[in-house]
Structures are given as C-alpha cells and as structure tokens.
C-alpha cells in the first residue's frame, strides 16, 4: 500500500518526467529551428556575395574591388568572421590578413541546407562556387565563408542555459517548493497524525490546514479523554474506594516489585498485617456507616504515622497491610508498629459516637518468613492471629526467636536509658605498666554497668546494643567526660598524673557533631591533651574512612594520642599504619597467649619490630604471667596491661592500687 508521502513523490516524479519529455522534444525542435535560421543567414550572405562577384566582376584583375563587399558582409554579420575568395588554391581577396591558405577540403562544407545543430557546431567553414567567364571560358572561383564558431557556440550555449534555467531549473525549483509545501502542510501532518493515532506519545503541533487541524484537535481531545478514563480505571482498579488506600491488587503489584528489588539487593523488609479488634461489634451496634467512617479514620491515622514511601493497603473489611522497608533496626520497626497500635487505640469520635477499638498486628519478614507474596501474607496473618490469641492490642513477630530477641532489645534499651538516668554506669581502670620497672605509665578506662539486680554487666552485653539503638553516642560522651574529669582530679589531688585511655566506638564517629564535642570537652576541661589517649579498632576505617580519618587527625591536632586496639585480629592492613595518625599499637591478648610457641612468638616479634620501625609505642594486652613479661622485655616491648598486674578496678580500688604500689607492681611489688 502506498503512503501519502510516497504518493506525492511519485506524482511529482511523474509530472517531472512528463514535463521534461515535452520540454526536451521542444528544446530539440527549437535548436533545429535556430540552426536553420543561422544557416539561412549564412547561406544568404554567401550566395549574395557570390552572385554579386559573379555578375559584377569585369575580369579577374578587378576582384580586389570586391574586398569592401566581403568586409562589409563580415562586419555586418555576427555569424561570419571571415570571407575568402580564391582561384584554385590561390587566395585572391580575404578579410583577415592572418589567413594565408585556403582551408582543406575536409574542413569545409559546400552543402548549406538541412544542417543539423551538431554539424553546425563543429563546422568552421562553408564553401561556395562563384561562376564567371574568363573571356569565353567558364571558370570558377571559390568563396569560403568562415563562421564565428565561438559566437554560434555561445549562442546555443546561452540558449541551452536559458532553457535549463526557465524550463529546467525554475520548474524543478518550483516542483521542489511544491514538494516542500505538500510535505510540510500535508504529508508530514498526516504522518504525525498516524503516529499520534498509533502511539499517542508525540502530540502534533497545530496544523495550518483547517481540515487537518480539525482532525488533530479531535484526536487530541479523544485521546485525552481516553487517557483520563484509563487512568481513572487504573486508579479504581488499584485503590480501595472506601479508604483511598491501595487495594489488594496494588499491594500485590508493589510487593512483587519490592520482592524483586530486595532479592537483588539482598535486603529485607517487613510486612505488617493489621486487624482491628472487635470491629464487628462496632458494625453491628452502630451500623455499617459508622463502621466505614471508623475504617476511614483508621486509614488516615495509619497514613499519618507512616512515611510517604511505605506501602499501606486495605485488603479486607477491617484488615490493613503495611509494608515497611526503610528501617535501620528492629527496634525502630517496633517503635513504628507500637505507634500504630497506640494511635488506633485512642478514642475515635465518629458522628459524635465515642468509639474505642484496638488492633492486633502480625509481622513477617522477607526473606526469613516467606519469599513470595502468599508466604509472607500467610506468615503475617498467622502472627496477627497469635497476637489476637495473646489478648489483642499488641503485635507479634512470626518468628518466636526473633520476637524474643526484639523484646529483649527493647527491654535492654529501656534499662540502659534508665541506667544513664540513675548513674548505674561506672568506669573501671586497668593500669598500663612498664615492663622494665613495673611502673604505672597509664590506665585504660573500661565501662561497667552496675545493675541493681543483675550486678556488674560486662560491656560486651550492652555496648553492641547501645551501638545499635543509638545510645552509644550519649554513653561515649559520658565516658569521655568522666575520664577527662578523673585525670584532672587525680592530677590535682597529687595522686597521679598518668595518661588515661578511652575506647571510642565507630558509632561515635558517625555523629556529625563528634569533632566539635570532643574539642569542647578537651578545651573546657583544661586537661593536658597528652594525658589522654584514644583507643579504637580498625573497624573505624572500614566505613567512611575519609571522614573518620579527618576526625582522627583533628584529635591528633589537639595533642591527644591514638592507639590501635586489638591489632592483628581484624582486617589489619599495613595501609592503615601508613595512612593513620597512630601513636601506639596494642597487641591483642590472643597473640600474647601464644607467646611461648614458635608461630605465636613470630607474630608478636613481627608486630613489635614493625612498631619500632614505624616509631610507634607497643602495649601488650592480657599479660598474666611473669614469663610473658620476661618475654616482652626480651623483644623490646616496653608496656603491658593485664591481670598479672591488675584487673580493671573501680575508682577507689584503683586509687588504692596506686597508693599501695607506688606506681609499681610485679616481682618488685610489695
């Protein structure tokens, strides 16, 4: 089937072909007519000249008197350049002095009739006889007429040019213009209408032609209406008409997408199934209208509790499903869920009826509790029924262990907050000793939680939780503040002016205000910064290394030294030693435990040598025997800490230790 575009081109090509066929025929005919006219003029001049000479010449000697005739003919005819009269090969008269011989026979043409244009254009000389009598004998002179070849060529060239211009180029340009007009005003608009009708993507601009514009605007209006209706249908198909929330269909669609994404990124999300408790009672007692209004109210408040990107859907009468994907910890997740429970259980006033309902919530996690929509929904549903069974108005995780863990975390957080408030945290100090004179050269501050019921809780039981729930920042600041005050207090009291070490958690570095807080504590307290040492592990550099490095440099700039704790146990890299502003390496207890076997000692000695080469101090941790100390002396490690000298001690015991030992312990201690 032919497109309009091709049809127009074909039509124009057909017109061009027809036109140029006629034009070419006319051109050839015209050329021949002009040739005939030129030849007639040449023939006339030639024959007239020949006749005059033939009739008026009184004798061959009087031929010279006809030179003026020849000159006149040549001068008055633009077609003729020269004329020559010869007798045999002898030139008698000529109009151009440059001509010395008559032209050869092959270059002349004696026929002056029916000459085609091509022949005229190549012919330079025409020849004619002049009959006369020499006394009573007939004789012949020859008259050569030289045509102006350049003039004739130019004449035909000009003629051709005019033809090409007026019958060739102008019509061609005209047809080109016509094609452009047809293309711009008809074929292109029609093509854009076709594309618009096909894909409705690119809306054509208004057209110049009225009929086409009517079609375009009608199509545009129709497509707009269809698009609007399509969107409305799509929205209705995906939206719960009562609450305005997503319906099950949309929930499934978005869940599918979320499962794909979580699978790709290896992340998790929670699906929260909410069922209102005793909703049937509301419906039955106050009517469905009130029930519907209550559902709308609940939908609104869930919507307000959650963030924009959380998925909320109403999947049944009083059933809602929430999908939460952007939470950092289970603790944060439970906070959100608890907030929903609390908001739902608030008093609702529906058409002046005070209504109080509660909600039971089941929580399932992708991928632990299900890897597809059906599995996840089923798990969340089961957890929800478990919550109902346990007395309603509460939430329940599908996995029991997880549920227990979350509850424990929540409880721990509560306890820690309470502990901070009640000053249940306490710093213990473990001395750092010199291996040579067993002098106390410093102490490491270690936090302990003195629980009223559970007694002393080691840091391993609460520091990870504090790092998780965000309490670490607050706790870390308290530790730093306390250590600085303690150092100043011991110094002021004259008990000791030793360097105290503080462990910094990687979580503290994540605090945007850490640098400012640290500097403020140092400056405001008036502590000699050299009496403070920061201990941190290599994990500080696993994330945000550039930012953390900047913080460490700030610490060093203040004059506080930095120790790398547990060296060799983590992702130790020599690159860290090169890049970090470290003053001291602390050899982990696990290395020291193996000091007396070949492999263990190689590691210890390598670390010590490395530290010495890099001009770093070395502190050996977990020293428990005199043999270990002897070994340390032997390999040149100057400082140690461990139970051999003292475990971490509360402040009063540490002060007593200082007094008793007079800054010394070990074999020499009393």
């Amino acid at each position, binding site marked *: 089937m032919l497109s309009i575009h091709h049809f127009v081109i074909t039509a124009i090509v057909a017109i061009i072909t027809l036109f140029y066929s006629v034009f070419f025929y006319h051109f050839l005919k015209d050329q021949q007519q002009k040739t005939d006219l030129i030849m007639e003029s040449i023939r006339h001049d030639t024959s007239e000249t020949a006749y005059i000479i033939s009739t008026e010449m009184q004798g061959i000697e009087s031929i010279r008197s006809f030179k003026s005739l020849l000159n006149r003919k040549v001068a008055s005819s633009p077609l003729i350049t020269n004329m020559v009269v010869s007798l045999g090969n002898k030139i008698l008269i000529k109009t151009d002095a440059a001509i010395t011989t008559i032209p050869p026979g092959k270059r002349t043409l004696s026929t002056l009739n029916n000459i085609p244009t091509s022949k005229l254009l190549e012919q330079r000389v025409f020849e004619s006889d002049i009959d006369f009598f020499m006394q009573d004998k007939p004789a012949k002179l020859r008259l050569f007429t030289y045509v102006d070849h350049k003039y004739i060529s130019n004449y035909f060239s000009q003629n051709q040019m005019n033809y090409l211009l007026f019958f060739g*180029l102008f019509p061609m340009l005209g047809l080109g213009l016509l094609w452009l007009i047809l293309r711009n005003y008809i074929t292109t608009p029609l093509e854009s209408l076709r594309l618009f009708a096909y894909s409705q993507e690119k809306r054509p601009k208004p057209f110049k032609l009225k009929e086409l514009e009517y079609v375009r605007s009608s199509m545009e209006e129709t497509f707009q209406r269809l698009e609007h209706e399509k969107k409305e249908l799509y929205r209705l198909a995906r939206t719960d008409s009562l609450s305005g929330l997503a319906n099950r269909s949309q929930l499934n669609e978005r869940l599918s997408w979320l499962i794909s994404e979580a699978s790709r990124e290896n992340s998790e999300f929670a699906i929260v199934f909410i069922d209102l408790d005793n909703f049937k009672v509301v419906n039955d007692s106050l009517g469905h209208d009130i029930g519907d209004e209550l559902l709308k109210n609940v939908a609104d408040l869930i919507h307000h509790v959650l963030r924009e990107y959380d998925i909320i859907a109403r999947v049944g009468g009083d059933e809602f499903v929430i999908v939460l994907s952007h939470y950092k910890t289970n603790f944060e997740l439970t906070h959100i869920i608890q907030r929903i429970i609390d908001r739902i259980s608030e008093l609702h006033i529906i058409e002046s009826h005070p209504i109080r309902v509660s909600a039971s919530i089941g929580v399932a996690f992708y991928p632990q509790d299900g890897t597809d929509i059906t599995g996840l929904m089923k798990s969340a549903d089961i957890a929800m029924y478990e919550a109902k069974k346990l007395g309603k108005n509460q939430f329940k995780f599908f996995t029991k262990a997880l549920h227990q863990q979350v509850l424990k975390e929540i409880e721990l957080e509560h306890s820690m907050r309470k502990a901070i408030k009640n000053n249940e945290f306490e710093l213990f100090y473990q001395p750092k000793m010199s291996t040579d004179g067993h002098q106390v050269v410093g102490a490491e501050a270690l936090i302990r939680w003195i629980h009223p019921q559970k007694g002393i809780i080691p840091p391993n039981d609460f520091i990870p939780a504090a790092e998780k729930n965000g309490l670490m920042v607050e706790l870390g600041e308290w530790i730093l503040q306390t250590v600085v005050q303690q150092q100043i207090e011991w110094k002021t009291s004259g008990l000791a002016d030793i360097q105290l070490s503080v462990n910094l958690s990687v979580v503290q570095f994540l605090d945007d205000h850490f640098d400012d807080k640290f500097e403020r504590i140092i400056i405001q307290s008036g502590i000699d910064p050299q009496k403070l040492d920061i201990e941190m592990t290599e994990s500080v550099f696993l994330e945000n290394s550039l930012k953390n490095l900047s913080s460490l440099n700030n610490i060093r700039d203040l004059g506080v030294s930095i120790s790398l704790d547990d060296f060799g146990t983590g992702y130790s890299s020599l690159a860290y030693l090169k890049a970090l502003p470290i003053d001291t390496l602390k050899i982990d207890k696990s290395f020291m435990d193996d000091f007396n076997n070949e492999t263990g000692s190689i590691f210890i000695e390598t670390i010590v040598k490395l530290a010495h080469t890099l001009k770093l101090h070395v502190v050996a941790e977990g020293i428990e025997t005199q043999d270990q100390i002897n070994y340390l002396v032997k390999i040149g490690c100057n400082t140690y800490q461990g139970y051999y000298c003292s475990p971490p001690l509360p402040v009063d015991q540490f002060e007593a230790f200082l007094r008793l030992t007079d800054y010394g312990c070990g074999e020499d201690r009393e």
Partner: protein
Amino acid sequence: MVKTFFLFAAMALLGCSSQEQPSLKIVANSWIGYSPLFYAKANGWLEPLNIKLSTVVSLGESMHIYEYSGLDAFTGTQYEYHQVHQKNPNLIPVIMFDRSNGGDVVMSNRSEKSLRETADPINVYLEINSVNQLVFKDFVKRHKLQDKTFNYINGDQLKIVSELKNNLDPGPSIVVTYVPYNHSLEKSGFTTLASTRDGLDLLVLDALYTTKDTFKLHNEQFKQLKSLIDRAIYDLENHPKQFYERVKPYLENNTYDEFLSSLEDIVWLNNELDPKLVERLDEALFPTRDLL
C-alpha cells in the same frame, strides 16, 4: 530540509550567471591612424578582452555598418561623428587616435591649372557620405573651382582605386582620398593637389565612437583597449619595421617606405590633448570630456 532547498536553489541560480566579459564589437576602416587597432588584433591582444574588430574599406562603410549592424563602436572622423550624433545624441568619442596632417588628400590626373581651364565636367571620385565631402568642398573653395561642373562618383576607396587603375583614360578626374589609398593612385598617374597638411585649412580628427550606455557597459574593455593602443603606438615609434610587418595586410600592402611616409601625414593624439586643440574641438562641437 527547507534551508537545504533554498541553499540549493541559490547555488543553482548563481551557477547560471556568466562571468565572461560581454563581446565588444568594433568596426574600423583601413586608415593609417587606426593601425594601432590592427596591430593589436594582429598580435592577438584583443581576443582575451573579447573585443572583435571588423575592418572595412571606407569611412562611410564603417559608419553605415555601425548604424545598421548593431556593432558597439566605430572609428571615423568628426564628420562621421556628427552624422551619427544627429541620430543618436548619446554618441561620444572615447579614444582619440590621430589628427590628419596630410593624410587626407585631393588628387587629380590633371594639374591644378588644367583643371581650372578645362570646360569638360570633372569626375570627382569620393566617399560622398564622409569627411571626403568636407575636404572636397574646402578644396573647391580654396582653389576657386566653384564654376566647374563636377560629376560625383561615389564609391569606397578600394573600388575607386581599382576603377581608376583599370580605366586608362577616365578624363579630368579628382579623387578625394586618404592614406594609404593615395599611394595606389600615385601609381595610376594621380598627383596630390592639396592635403590636410597644406593647402587645406581643415581639421580632421580620427577617433573611436560609442554610445554612453555602451561605454558604461564595456568601460573596462575600453580602458584596456586604450592601453593597448598606447602600447601599439609605443611599439610603432620604437620598432616601426616590426609594426609595419604586422599591419601591412590591413593597409592594402603598402611598401615600408609608403608606410613611413604615411606616418608623416598624421599626428598621434593618444596622449594629453593640446589646449589649443581642445579649444578648437569645442568650437567644432566635438566633446572631449569622455575621452580616455
């Protein structure tokens, strides 16, 4: 696409325009004063300028062909100029060649005395419609021949020469002619009775004439032609023999001596005109303003 189309159209139209100079067609008669033109043609100097020079035998022909054959310029004396100027007021002289200083002559096969005494009609051979007529009138007046009966025979110079050469006894005849035809007539027994050098108080100037429009259209060609004429006259003054060899066929194959003699009969006017001459030209209503 539209821009491309119009660009193509502009290029196509520009491509149709011709850059060649239009042809400048000049007609000149055989006269020693126009020999620089013949020299330029013989040397092929005119072709690059697209100037076509046609030569005719007589002054009258030159004027006639200019008028009726659509040529661009013609050579002639001030007489031909006035003749054409009456019909075409746009005609102007553009290049000055020479002033006749003996080049126009009145010859006869009788002595002046014989002519004055004869009672027979005297044949007068001349180009009626040319400066010959003025020359003859001046001659008649100065030699007091007004009472004589003249039988005017009009013809171009070549025809006159040819006829008198073949006619051994034409009777008392006067020929008004000019260089180089006088030399042929001398061989036929004619002697010079008067010339523009002496005996005739007539100013005869030779120039190239064209219309103002043509002058404007071919201005550059005319300027270059003027340069070529100056160059030809320079060559003539410095290498007359070579010059002669070149122009000989255009001057009816006179001998070199005749050629040199002819040069004595004209004064070149290709340089700045003498103020007195300009004054005289003004009086003769001969414009000099557009002269190159």
